[in-house]
Protein backbone atom coordinates (compact mmCIF):
# COMPACT_ATOMS: atom_id res chain seq x y z
CA UNK A 1 0.00 0.00 0.00
CA UNK A 2 1.46 3.37 -1.03
CA UNK A 3 1.42 6.38 1.25
CA UNK A 4 -1.18 7.97 -0.99
CA UNK A 5 -3.37 4.89 -0.71
CA UNK A 6 -2.98 4.98 3.07
CA UNK A 7 -3.98 8.66 3.16
CA UNK A 8 -6.96 7.94 0.92
CA UNK A 9 -8.16 5.15 3.17
CA UNK A 10 -7.74 7.29 6.31
CA UNK A 11 -9.67 10.18 4.81
CA UNK A 12 -12.48 7.97 3.52
CA UNK A 13 -12.82 6.12 6.82
CA UNK A 14 -12.92 9.31 8.89
CA UNK A 15 -15.25 11.12 6.50
CA UNK A 16 -17.66 8.20 6.56
CA UNK A 17 -17.59 7.63 10.31
CA UNK A 18 -17.97 11.26 11.29
CA UNK A 19 -20.10 12.34 8.32
CA UNK A 20 -17.61 14.97 7.16
CA UNK A 21 -17.69 16.37 3.63
CA UNK A 22 -14.75 14.65 1.86
CA UNK A 23 -13.92 17.98 0.22
CA UNK A 24 -13.03 19.33 3.64
CA UNK A 25 -10.51 16.59 4.43
CA UNK A 26 -7.31 18.66 4.19
CA UNK A 27 -4.13 17.70 6.07
CA UNK A 28 -3.92 21.03 7.86
CA UNK A 29 -7.41 20.69 9.37
CA UNK A 30 -7.43 20.34 13.15
CA UNK A 31 -9.57 17.51 14.50
CA UNK A 32 -11.35 19.45 17.22
CA UNK A 33 -11.61 22.98 15.85
CA UNK A 34 -11.93 22.43 12.11
CA UNK A 35 -13.48 18.96 11.81
CA UNK A 36 -15.70 19.35 14.88
CA UNK A 37 -14.66 16.16 16.66
CA UNK A 38 -14.62 15.81 20.45
CA UNK A 39 -13.15 13.48 23.04
CA UNK A 40 -15.78 10.76 22.48
CA UNK A 41 -15.09 10.91 18.75
CA UNK A 42 -11.40 10.32 19.40
CA UNK A 43 -12.31 7.05 21.14
CA UNK A 44 -14.14 6.02 17.98
CA UNK A 45 -11.40 7.40 15.71
CA UNK A 46 -8.95 4.94 17.22
CA UNK A 47 -11.34 2.06 16.51
CA UNK A 48 -11.93 3.29 12.96
CA UNK A 49 -8.18 3.36 12.29
CA UNK A 50 -7.58 0.01 14.02
CA UNK A 51 -10.30 -1.58 11.91
CA UNK A 52 -9.13 0.02 8.66
CA UNK A 53 -5.46 -0.93 9.09
CA UNK A 54 -5.68 -4.00 11.32
CA UNK A 55 -3.27 -2.75 13.96
CA UNK A 56 -3.54 -1.81 17.63
CA UNK A 57 -2.77 1.80 18.50
CA UNK A 58 -4.88 2.60 21.56
CA UNK A 59 -1.93 2.39 23.95
CA UNK A 60 0.42 4.14 21.55
CA UNK A 61 1.94 7.32 23.01
CA UNK A 62 2.06 8.90 19.56
CA UNK A 63 -1.72 9.26 19.46
CA UNK A 64 -1.67 11.90 22.16
CA UNK A 65 0.36 14.24 19.95
CA UNK A 66 -2.12 14.17 17.08
CA UNK A 67 -3.78 17.53 16.42
CA UNK A 68 -4.45 17.60 12.67
CA UNK A 69 -5.58 15.25 9.93
CA UNK A 70 -2.02 15.46 8.59
CA UNK A 71 -0.76 14.23 11.97
CA UNK A 72 -2.96 11.16 11.55
CA UNK A 73 -1.60 10.55 8.05
CA UNK A 74 1.98 10.71 9.34
CA UNK A 75 1.20 8.61 12.41
CA UNK A 76 -0.47 5.82 10.44
CA UNK A 77 2.20 5.78 7.73
CA UNK A 78 4.93 5.54 10.37
CA UNK A 79 3.04 2.85 12.27
CA UNK A 80 2.56 0.77 9.15
CA UNK A 81 6.23 1.16 8.19
CA UNK A 82 7.26 0.04 11.69
CA UNK A 83 5.03 -2.99 11.57
CA UNK A 84 6.14 -3.96 8.06
CA UNK A 85 9.82 -3.73 9.03
CA UNK A 86 9.37 -6.25 11.82
CA UNK A 87 10.39 -9.69 10.56
CA UNK A 88 7.51 -12.15 10.77
Amino acid at each position, binding site marked *: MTNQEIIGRIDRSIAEE*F*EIDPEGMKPEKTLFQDL*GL*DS*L*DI*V*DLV*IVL*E*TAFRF*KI*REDEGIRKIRTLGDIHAFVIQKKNELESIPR
Partner: protein
Amino acid sequence: MPLKRVVITGMGAVSPFGRGVDTLMTALLLGESGVRILPELADIRGIRTRVAALVPGVDPGEIPRKYRRSMSTMSVFAALAAGDAIAQAGLSGEQVRGGRLGVSIGSTIGSPRTTQAFFDDFRTDNSVERMKSGVFFQIMNHSCAANVAHMFDITGRTVAPAAACSTGSLAVGYGAEMISMGKQDFMLCGGADEFHPLTAGTFDIMNAASIRFNDSPERTPRPFDRDRDGVVCAEGSGILLLESLDSALRRDAEILAEIVGFASTSDPESIANPNAANIALCMRQALLDAGIGAAGIDYVNAHATGTELGDIAESEAIRSVFGGRIPTSSLKGNLGHAMAASGALELAASVEMMRREILLPTHNLDHVDPLCASVLHVREVIRRRVDTVMKNNFALGGVNSSLIIRRFRQ
Protein backbone atom coordinates in the same frame (compact mmCIF):
# COMPACT_ATOMS: atom_id res chain seq x y z
CA MET B 1 -48.98 23.98 49.90
CA PRO B 2 -51.68 24.21 47.23
CA LEU B 3 -51.11 21.91 44.28
CA LYS B 4 -50.81 23.43 40.83
CA ARG B 5 -53.11 22.47 37.98
CA VAL B 6 -51.36 20.72 35.10
CA VAL B 7 -52.22 21.04 31.43
CA ILE B 8 -50.97 19.62 28.13
CA THR B 9 -49.72 22.22 25.66
CA GLY B 10 -47.73 20.14 23.17
CA MET B 11 -47.73 16.62 21.75
CA GLY B 12 -45.48 14.59 19.49
CA ALA B 13 -45.99 11.14 18.04
CA VAL B 14 -43.87 8.67 16.12
CA SER B 15 -46.13 5.71 15.43
CA PRO B 16 -46.57 2.80 13.04
CA PHE B 17 -48.30 5.34 10.79
CA GLY B 18 -45.27 7.64 10.69
CA ARG B 19 -44.48 10.92 12.34
CA GLY B 20 -46.92 13.38 13.81
CA VAL B 21 -50.13 13.42 15.81
CA ASP B 22 -52.11 14.48 12.73
CA THR B 23 -50.71 11.53 10.77
CA LEU B 24 -51.73 9.25 13.60
CA MET B 25 -55.23 10.68 13.82
CA THR B 26 -55.80 10.55 10.05
CA ALA B 27 -54.92 6.84 10.04
CA LEU B 28 -57.06 6.10 13.09
CA LEU B 29 -60.03 7.94 11.61
CA LEU B 30 -59.70 5.93 8.40
CA GLY B 31 -59.55 2.71 10.40
CA GLU B 32 -56.13 1.80 9.07
CA SER B 33 -53.81 -0.82 10.48
CA GLY B 34 -50.09 -0.32 11.10
CA VAL B 35 -49.47 -4.07 11.35
CA ARG B 36 -47.40 -5.74 8.65
CA ILE B 37 -45.81 -9.10 7.95
CA LEU B 38 -42.21 -9.10 9.16
CA PRO B 39 -40.52 -11.79 7.03
CA GLU B 40 -37.32 -11.94 9.12
CA LEU B 41 -39.28 -13.36 12.04
CA ALA B 42 -39.52 -16.60 10.03
CA ASP B 43 -35.75 -17.01 10.48
CA ILE B 44 -36.00 -17.18 14.28
CA ARG B 45 -36.46 -20.62 15.78
CA GLY B 46 -39.31 -20.97 18.21
CA ILE B 47 -41.13 -17.76 17.36
CA ARG B 48 -44.53 -18.26 15.81
CA THR B 49 -45.75 -14.72 15.26
CA ARG B 50 -44.82 -13.16 11.92
CA VAL B 51 -46.39 -9.72 12.31
CA ALA B 52 -45.41 -6.42 13.89
CA ALA B 53 -46.17 -2.71 13.59
CA LEU B 54 -42.98 -0.84 12.75
CA VAL B 55 -42.45 2.89 12.25
CA PRO B 56 -42.14 3.89 8.59
CA GLY B 57 -40.53 6.92 7.02
CA VAL B 58 -38.54 8.40 9.87
CA ASP B 59 -35.13 9.79 8.93
CA PRO B 60 -32.62 9.66 11.81
CA GLY B 61 -30.32 11.78 9.64
CA GLU B 62 -32.26 14.90 10.52
CA ILE B 63 -30.73 14.63 14.00
CA PRO B 64 -27.17 16.02 14.00
CA ARG B 65 -24.50 13.34 14.33
CA LYS B 66 -23.25 14.78 17.62
CA TYR B 67 -26.60 13.86 19.22
CA ARG B 68 -27.41 10.82 17.08
CA ARG B 69 -24.21 8.92 17.97
CA SER B 70 -25.57 8.18 21.46
CA MET B 71 -29.07 7.32 20.22
CA SER B 72 -30.55 3.98 19.35
CA THR B 73 -33.71 3.79 17.25
CA MET B 74 -35.93 4.32 20.29
CA SER B 75 -34.09 7.49 21.29
CA VAL B 76 -34.41 8.80 17.74
CA PHE B 77 -38.18 8.26 17.98
CA ALA B 78 -38.27 10.02 21.38
CA ALA B 79 -36.15 12.94 20.21
CA LEU B 80 -38.28 13.56 17.12
CA ALA B 81 -41.53 13.34 19.10
CA ALA B 82 -40.11 15.59 21.85
CA GLY B 83 -39.05 18.19 19.29
CA ASP B 84 -42.55 18.21 17.83
CA ALA B 85 -44.11 18.56 21.30
CA ILE B 86 -41.84 21.50 22.16
CA ALA B 87 -42.64 23.13 18.83
CA GLN B 88 -46.39 22.78 19.28
CA ALA B 89 -46.16 24.22 22.78
CA GLY B 90 -44.16 27.12 21.42
CA LEU B 91 -41.60 27.16 24.23
CA SER B 92 -38.80 29.69 23.87
CA GLY B 93 -35.16 28.67 24.02
CA GLU B 94 -34.91 30.20 27.48
CA GLN B 95 -37.92 28.20 28.66
CA VAL B 96 -36.38 24.98 27.31
CA ARG B 97 -32.90 25.61 28.72
CA GLY B 98 -33.69 27.59 31.84
CA GLY B 99 -34.02 24.73 34.32
CA ARG B 100 -37.80 24.78 34.68
CA LEU B 101 -38.29 22.11 31.98
CA GLY B 102 -37.65 18.51 32.99
CA VAL B 103 -37.83 15.15 31.27
CA SER B 104 -39.79 12.05 32.26
CA ILE B 105 -39.41 9.57 29.44
CA GLY B 106 -39.02 5.81 29.77
CA SER B 107 -38.58 2.67 27.74
CA THR B 108 -39.12 -0.98 28.55
CA ILE B 109 -35.38 -1.69 28.51
CA GLY B 110 -32.36 0.05 26.98
CA SER B 111 -31.95 -0.53 23.26
CA PRO B 112 -32.24 -4.26 22.55
CA ARG B 113 -30.84 -3.78 19.04
CA THR B 114 -27.68 -2.09 20.29
CA THR B 115 -27.38 -4.60 23.12
CA GLN B 116 -27.57 -7.44 20.61
CA ALA B 117 -25.05 -5.79 18.27
CA PHE B 118 -22.63 -5.32 21.16
CA PHE B 119 -22.85 -8.90 22.36
CA ASP B 120 -22.72 -10.31 18.83
CA ASP B 121 -19.35 -8.61 18.46
CA PHE B 122 -18.19 -9.17 22.05
CA ARG B 123 -18.79 -12.92 21.86
CA THR B 124 -16.63 -13.37 18.75
CA ASP B 125 -13.41 -13.04 20.77
CA ASN B 126 -14.43 -11.86 24.25
CA SER B 127 -13.25 -8.36 23.44
CA VAL B 128 -14.39 -4.77 23.97
CA GLU B 129 -11.72 -3.43 21.65
CA ARG B 130 -14.24 -2.59 18.94
CA MET B 131 -16.85 -1.05 21.24
CA LYS B 132 -17.70 2.46 20.08
CA SER B 133 -18.20 5.25 22.58
CA GLY B 134 -21.94 5.51 21.89
CA VAL B 135 -22.84 1.94 22.89
CA PHE B 136 -23.38 2.52 26.58
CA PHE B 137 -25.42 5.66 25.99
CA GLN B 138 -27.79 3.62 23.83
CA ILE B 139 -28.28 0.74 26.25
CA MET B 140 -28.42 2.55 29.59
CA ASN B 141 -31.89 2.46 31.11
CA HIS B 142 -32.43 6.20 30.87
CA SER B 143 -31.14 6.46 27.32
CA CYS B 144 -34.25 8.07 25.79
CA ALA B 145 -34.65 10.61 28.59
CA ALA B 146 -30.97 11.52 28.69
CA ASN B 147 -30.73 11.84 24.92
CA VAL B 148 -33.76 14.12 24.78
CA ALA B 149 -32.32 16.29 27.56
CA HIS B 150 -28.96 16.40 25.78
CA MET B 151 -30.36 17.23 22.37
CA PHE B 152 -32.54 20.10 23.54
CA ASP B 153 -30.17 21.50 26.22
CA ILE B 154 -32.67 20.76 28.98
CA THR B 155 -31.25 21.43 32.44
CA GLY B 156 -34.15 20.46 34.72
CA ARG B 157 -34.83 17.02 36.17
CA THR B 158 -34.34 13.86 34.13
CA VAL B 159 -36.21 10.74 35.23
CA ALA B 160 -36.85 7.56 33.28
CA PRO B 161 -39.72 5.54 34.72
CA ALA B 162 -39.77 1.98 33.46
CA ALA B 163 -42.75 -0.33 33.81
CA ALA B 164 -43.07 -2.06 30.43
CA CYS B 165 -46.54 -1.37 29.00
CA SER B 166 -47.38 1.21 31.69
CA THR B 167 -44.22 3.24 31.12
CA GLY B 168 -45.69 6.02 29.00
CA SER B 169 -48.65 6.61 31.30
CA LEU B 170 -46.49 6.46 34.41
CA ALA B 171 -44.04 8.93 32.93
CA VAL B 172 -46.90 11.34 32.28
CA GLY B 173 -48.39 10.80 35.74
CA TYR B 174 -45.13 11.30 37.58
CA GLY B 175 -44.26 14.29 35.42
CA ALA B 176 -47.64 15.83 36.20
CA GLU B 177 -47.03 15.32 39.91
CA MET B 178 -43.70 17.13 39.71
CA ILE B 179 -45.38 20.13 38.11
CA SER B 180 -48.27 19.89 40.53
CA MET B 181 -45.82 20.12 43.43
CA GLY B 182 -44.07 23.07 41.83
CA LYS B 183 -40.78 21.27 41.26
CA GLN B 184 -40.84 22.05 37.53
CA ASP B 185 -42.98 24.32 35.35
CA PHE B 186 -42.74 22.12 32.26
CA MET B 187 -42.16 18.39 31.75
CA LEU B 188 -41.59 16.42 28.56
CA CYS B 189 -43.29 13.13 29.34
CA GLY B 190 -43.86 9.84 27.59
CA GLY B 191 -42.25 6.67 26.38
CA ALA B 192 -40.45 5.07 23.48
CA ASP B 193 -39.59 1.59 22.32
CA GLU B 194 -38.05 -0.10 19.29
CA PHE B 195 -39.15 -3.46 17.95
CA HIS B 196 -36.96 -6.46 18.67
CA PRO B 197 -37.76 -10.19 18.47
CA LEU B 198 -37.01 -10.35 22.20
CA THR B 199 -40.28 -8.54 22.90
CA ALA B 200 -42.39 -10.49 20.42
CA GLY B 201 -40.74 -13.70 21.62
CA THR B 202 -41.51 -12.87 25.24
CA PHE B 203 -45.23 -12.68 24.50
CA ASP B 204 -45.01 -15.67 22.16
CA ILE B 205 -43.49 -18.07 24.70
CA MET B 206 -46.21 -17.07 27.17
CA ASN B 207 -48.81 -17.85 24.47
CA ALA B 208 -49.83 -14.20 24.48
CA ALA B 209 -48.64 -13.16 20.98
CA SER B 210 -50.94 -13.19 17.97
CA ILE B 211 -50.03 -16.12 15.70
CA ARG B 212 -53.20 -16.93 13.76
CA PHE B 213 -53.22 -13.90 11.47
CA ASN B 214 -49.72 -14.14 10.05
CA ASP B 215 -51.10 -13.98 6.50
CA SER B 216 -53.59 -11.19 7.16
CA PRO B 217 -51.73 -8.79 9.47
CA GLU B 218 -54.32 -6.02 9.30
CA ARG B 219 -56.81 -8.33 11.05
CA THR B 220 -54.78 -8.49 14.27
CA PRO B 221 -54.60 -7.63 17.14
CA ARG B 222 -58.30 -7.87 17.94
CA PRO B 223 -59.00 -6.27 21.34
CA PHE B 224 -62.21 -7.53 22.99
CA ASP B 225 -63.03 -9.69 19.92
CA ARG B 226 -64.00 -13.33 20.38
CA ASP B 227 -61.30 -14.35 17.85
CA ARG B 228 -58.46 -12.39 19.42
CA ASP B 229 -55.29 -14.38 19.91
CA GLY B 230 -52.78 -12.04 21.46
CA VAL B 231 -50.49 -9.05 21.28
CA VAL B 232 -48.87 -7.64 18.15
CA CYS B 233 -45.68 -5.82 19.09
CA ALA B 234 -45.15 -2.33 17.77
CA GLU B 235 -42.70 0.54 18.22
CA GLY B 236 -42.65 4.31 18.33
CA SER B 237 -42.77 7.16 20.79
CA GLY B 238 -45.39 9.44 22.27
CA ILE B 239 -44.27 12.60 24.09
CA LEU B 240 -46.46 15.20 25.76
CA LEU B 241 -45.38 18.62 26.97
CA LEU B 242 -46.98 19.16 30.37
CA GLU B 243 -47.06 22.58 31.93
CA SER B 244 -48.48 24.27 34.98
CA LEU B 245 -51.72 26.05 34.22
CA ASP B 246 -50.25 29.26 35.63
CA SER B 247 -47.40 29.11 33.15
CA ALA B 248 -49.64 28.24 30.19
CA LEU B 249 -52.00 31.12 30.96
CA ARG B 250 -49.10 33.51 31.53
CA ARG B 251 -47.69 32.86 28.09
CA ASP B 252 -51.09 32.54 26.43
CA ALA B 253 -50.40 28.99 25.24
CA GLU B 254 -53.07 26.88 23.58
CA ILE B 255 -54.24 24.37 26.19
CA LEU B 256 -55.00 20.99 24.66
CA ALA B 257 -56.32 19.31 27.82
CA GLU B 258 -55.89 19.26 31.58
CA ILE B 259 -54.55 16.30 33.53
CA VAL B 260 -56.84 15.98 36.51
CA GLY B 261 -56.18 12.51 37.89
CA PHE B 262 -53.51 9.84 38.08
CA ALA B 263 -53.05 6.63 39.98
CA SER B 264 -50.75 3.65 39.84
CA THR B 265 -51.09 0.39 41.73
CA SER B 266 -48.92 -2.67 42.08
CA ASP B 267 -50.46 -6.08 41.58
CA PRO B 268 -48.59 -8.62 43.68
CA GLU B 269 -50.91 -11.46 42.66
CA SER B 270 -49.01 -12.32 39.47
CA ILE B 271 -45.93 -10.99 37.69
CA ALA B 272 -47.64 -11.67 34.36
CA ASN B 273 -51.39 -12.02 34.61
CA PRO B 274 -53.74 -9.06 35.07
CA ASN B 275 -56.14 -8.95 37.97
CA ALA B 276 -59.54 -7.30 37.57
CA ALA B 277 -59.81 -6.24 41.22
CA ASN B 278 -56.45 -4.49 41.18
CA ILE B 279 -57.19 -2.80 37.86
CA ALA B 280 -60.47 -1.55 39.30
CA LEU B 281 -58.63 -0.29 42.38
CA CYS B 282 -56.28 1.67 40.14
CA MET B 283 -59.16 3.29 38.26
CA ARG B 284 -60.97 4.15 41.51
CA GLN B 285 -57.84 5.75 42.92
CA ALA B 286 -57.49 7.86 39.79
CA LEU B 287 -61.09 9.01 40.24
CA LEU B 288 -60.32 9.89 43.87
CA ASP B 289 -57.24 11.79 42.75
CA ALA B 290 -59.38 13.75 40.29
CA GLY B 291 -62.06 14.31 42.89
CA ILE B 292 -64.81 13.04 40.60
CA GLY B 293 -67.17 10.09 40.64
CA ALA B 294 -67.45 7.37 38.03
CA ALA B 295 -70.33 9.26 36.42
CA GLY B 296 -67.90 12.07 35.66
CA ILE B 297 -66.02 9.99 33.09
CA ASP B 298 -67.37 10.15 29.52
CA TYR B 299 -65.10 7.62 27.81
CA VAL B 300 -62.47 5.02 28.71
CA ASN B 301 -59.50 4.51 26.42
CA ALA B 302 -58.62 0.98 27.37
CA HIS B 303 -55.27 -0.75 27.56
CA ALA B 304 -56.83 -3.84 25.89
CA THR B 305 -54.03 -5.47 23.93
CA GLY B 306 -55.98 -8.36 22.46
CA THR B 307 -54.87 -11.04 24.92
CA GLU B 308 -57.27 -13.66 26.21
CA LEU B 309 -56.95 -12.80 29.89
CA GLY B 310 -56.10 -9.12 29.84
CA ASP B 311 -59.13 -7.96 27.86
CA ILE B 312 -61.51 -9.90 30.09
CA ALA B 313 -59.93 -8.56 33.28
CA GLU B 314 -60.07 -4.98 32.04
CA SER B 315 -63.69 -5.35 30.87
CA GLU B 316 -64.70 -6.71 34.26
CA ALA B 317 -62.83 -3.95 36.04
CA ILE B 318 -64.39 -1.21 33.90
CA ARG B 319 -67.86 -2.65 34.52
CA SER B 320 -67.25 -2.85 38.25
CA VAL B 321 -66.21 0.81 38.39
CA PHE B 322 -68.48 2.40 35.79
CA GLY B 323 -71.32 -0.06 35.22
CA GLY B 324 -72.00 -1.24 31.72
CA ARG B 325 -72.75 2.02 29.88
CA ILE B 326 -69.37 3.68 29.63
CA PRO B 327 -68.13 4.03 26.02
CA THR B 328 -64.84 2.14 25.76
CA SER B 329 -62.37 1.42 23.00
CA SER B 330 -58.78 0.34 22.48
CA LEU B 331 -56.50 1.76 19.81
CA LYS B 332 -54.23 -1.28 19.74
CA GLY B 333 -56.30 -2.85 16.96
CA ASN B 334 -54.80 -0.15 14.71
CA LEU B 335 -51.46 0.46 16.37
CA GLY B 336 -50.42 -2.86 17.84
CA HIS B 337 -48.78 -2.62 21.22
CA ALA B 338 -45.97 -0.07 21.23
CA MET B 339 -44.97 -1.10 24.76
CA ALA B 340 -43.46 1.87 26.63
CA ALA B 341 -44.74 4.21 23.93
CA SER B 342 -48.29 2.91 23.94
CA GLY B 343 -49.64 4.89 26.90
CA ALA B 344 -48.40 8.23 25.66
CA LEU B 345 -49.40 7.60 22.03
CA GLU B 346 -52.89 6.57 23.10
CA LEU B 347 -53.11 9.52 25.48
CA ALA B 348 -52.21 11.90 22.64
CA ALA B 349 -54.94 10.31 20.50
CA SER B 350 -57.38 10.60 23.41
CA VAL B 351 -56.61 14.31 23.73
CA GLU B 352 -57.32 14.68 20.02
CA MET B 353 -60.59 12.74 20.34
CA MET B 354 -61.71 15.31 22.92
CA ARG B 355 -60.61 18.22 20.78
CA ARG B 356 -62.20 16.86 17.61
CA GLU B 357 -65.32 15.72 19.44
CA ILE B 358 -65.15 12.14 18.19
CA LEU B 359 -64.75 8.70 19.70
CA LEU B 360 -62.59 6.23 17.80
CA PRO B 361 -63.65 2.58 17.65
CA THR B 362 -61.73 -0.57 18.46
CA HIS B 363 -60.32 -1.80 15.15
CA ASN B 364 -60.94 -5.50 14.38
CA LEU B 365 -63.72 -5.75 16.95
CA ASP B 366 -66.09 -7.72 14.72
CA HIS B 367 -67.70 -9.99 17.30
CA VAL B 368 -67.52 -8.91 20.93
CA ASP B 369 -66.37 -11.73 23.19
CA PRO B 370 -69.27 -12.41 25.58
CA LEU B 371 -66.72 -12.27 28.41
CA CYS B 372 -65.82 -8.72 27.34
CA ALA B 373 -69.40 -7.60 26.73
CA SER B 374 -69.83 -5.86 30.05
CA VAL B 375 -68.82 -2.46 28.67
CA LEU B 376 -70.26 -0.29 25.90
CA HIS B 377 -67.84 -0.89 23.03
CA VAL B 378 -67.29 1.90 20.52
CA ARG B 379 -67.74 0.06 17.20
CA GLU B 380 -67.53 2.95 14.73
CA VAL B 381 -66.38 6.54 14.70
CA ILE B 382 -68.89 8.41 16.84
CA ARG B 383 -69.32 12.17 16.73
CA ARG B 384 -69.69 13.08 20.35
CA ARG B 385 -68.37 15.75 22.65
CA VAL B 386 -66.64 14.16 25.60
CA ASP B 387 -65.16 16.28 28.36
CA THR B 388 -63.44 13.76 30.62
CA VAL B 389 -61.48 10.68 29.56
CA MET B 390 -59.80 7.89 31.49
CA LYS B 391 -56.69 6.32 29.93
CA ASN B 392 -55.66 2.90 31.24
CA ASN B 393 -52.42 0.98 30.92
CA PHE B 394 -51.45 -2.25 32.66
CA ALA B 395 -47.99 -3.76 32.54
CA LEU B 396 -46.17 -7.04 32.74
CA GLY B 397 -44.62 -6.95 36.17
CA GLY B 398 -47.95 -5.99 37.71
CA VAL B 399 -47.81 -2.21 37.39
CA ASN B 400 -51.16 -0.59 36.66
CA SER B 401 -51.81 3.03 35.74
CA SER B 402 -54.83 5.21 35.04
CA LEU B 403 -54.79 8.84 33.92
CA ILE B 404 -57.75 11.18 33.71
CA ILE B 405 -57.75 14.11 31.31
CA ARG B 406 -60.40 16.80 30.97
CA ARG B 407 -61.31 19.44 28.45
CA PHE B 408 -59.82 22.62 29.83
CA ARG B 409 -62.11 25.11 31.52
CA GLN B 410 -61.08 27.92 33.85
